[in-house]
């Protein structure tokens, strides 16, 4: 199992550093945000699997030649086999890391649920439903904001009076379509997973980069949905007006748009053609392979042994 462990460790290091760095810098994700989002999820999942798998296979190596066999032997014999210090450390590390990641996920989900409920209650008290749009509510405040408030059963899209007065009719339509896409495609679930990942590894700069990249990609996905309904120029203006909340009363100067994410979202509307179908398929295949490789490395020999 030492060879398996080493292979998993190499994979874990690759997925923790060079691969996400490359993906974060690549320019193609803005051309196919859905494929890139899939790849980010595969990298996070495969990275966690291979890290925990590397530690676990190394830790249990004294008990057998494959993970399942070693686990069964450990249960059958107790701690009888001659065990070395580093194996114990590795096995404990695997349990600690796995527990830490799962606990943080649960904690992040719980915290944001508490916050979401409080926020939803405030929205219920302070906004009125839009007559022609049952899932949308109008907030009586001059700040131009629009966002979706996801919920377990029903999601609410919130618009402010300030936004409605700032945007033209078709710009508002663009914002509505954009927020609707967040709701129907359940972007909140992807975002919370990456927020949890970042929260559990605060010393790990790649995790915060990943969270930011994923946040940017779901905005682009929602933009693509809005683009089906309004022309790019209208959508671009809506993006800038909603995003530039520092100067809500003035129409901002487009050339001096300094917010990196907003700029990227607007520019891609004009410049980027979507990836070809075969390129998208290639990315999807890579994502599937990324998750399969550590899974097979960890469980494959054991399952083969059982059969």
């Amino acid at each position: 199992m030492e060879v398996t462990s080493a292979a998993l460790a190499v994979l874990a290091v690759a997925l923790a550093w060079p691969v996400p760095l490359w993906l974060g810098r690549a320019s193609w994700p803005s051309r196919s945000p859905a494929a890139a989002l899939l790849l980010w999820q595969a990298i996070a999942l495969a990275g966690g699997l291979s890290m925990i798998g590397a530690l676990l296979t190394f830790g249990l190596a004294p008990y057998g030649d494959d993970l399942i066999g070693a686990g069964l032997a450990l249960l059958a014999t107790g701690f009888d086999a001659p065990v070395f210090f580093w194996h114990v450390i590795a096995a404990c590390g695997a349990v600690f890391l796995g527990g830490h990641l799962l606990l943080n996920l649960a904690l992040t989900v719980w915290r944001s649920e508490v916050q979401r409920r409080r926020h939803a209650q405030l929205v219920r008290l302070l906004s009125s439903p839009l007559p022609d749009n049952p899932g949308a509510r109008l907030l009586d405040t001059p700040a131009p904001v629009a966002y979706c408030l996801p919920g377990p059963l029903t999601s609410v899209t919130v618009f402010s009076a300030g936004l409605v007065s700032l945007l033209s009719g078709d710009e508002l339509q663009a914002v509505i379509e954009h927020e609707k896409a967040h709701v129907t495609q359940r972007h909140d679930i992807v975002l919370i997973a990456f927020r949890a990942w970042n929260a559990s590894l605060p010393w790990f700069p790649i995790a915060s980069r990943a969270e930011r990249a994923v946040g940017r990609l779901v905005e682009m996905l929602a933009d693509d949905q809005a683009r089906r309904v309004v022309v790019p120029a209208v959508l671009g203006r809506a993006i800038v007006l909603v995003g530039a909340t520092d100067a809500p009363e003035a129409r901002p100067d487009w050339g001096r748009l300094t917010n990196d994410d907003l700029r990227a979202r607007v520019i891609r509307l004009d410049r980027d053609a979507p990836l070809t179908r075969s390129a998208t398929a290639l990315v999807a295949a890579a994502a599937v392979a990324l998750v399969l490789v550590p899974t097979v490395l960890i469980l494959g020999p054991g399952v083969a042994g059982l059969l």
Partner: protein
Amino acid sequence: MASLGELERAIMDLLWSSDTALSAYDLQERLAADESRKQLAATTVLTVLSRLENKGFVARERSSRPHRYSAAATREEHMAELMHDVLGSASNRTAVLERFIGQVSPEEADALRRLLAG
């Protein structure tokens, strides 16, 4: 039939716009003045009030009989809390982004102007 959420909102609106604390019967009376709403039972109003009290939106004066209720904070204070949720997270994002912000190249600025003028 208005949902519980809409009833909560109607009661809070009445409490926010009232200068004095109101009893459940005052509220029932004022809610009945709204023609579109059907007559509410006093117990319904009391139920909603105790829900709002549990959530910290309503304060109850127990010294008088019947108990009188008032808003725990102004509408503006709650709106500020809500806006802090929304814009607070956005400005955190901005703080994170600032390190990555680059200048817009002339070519990009042209592309932006062309697109947004269209």
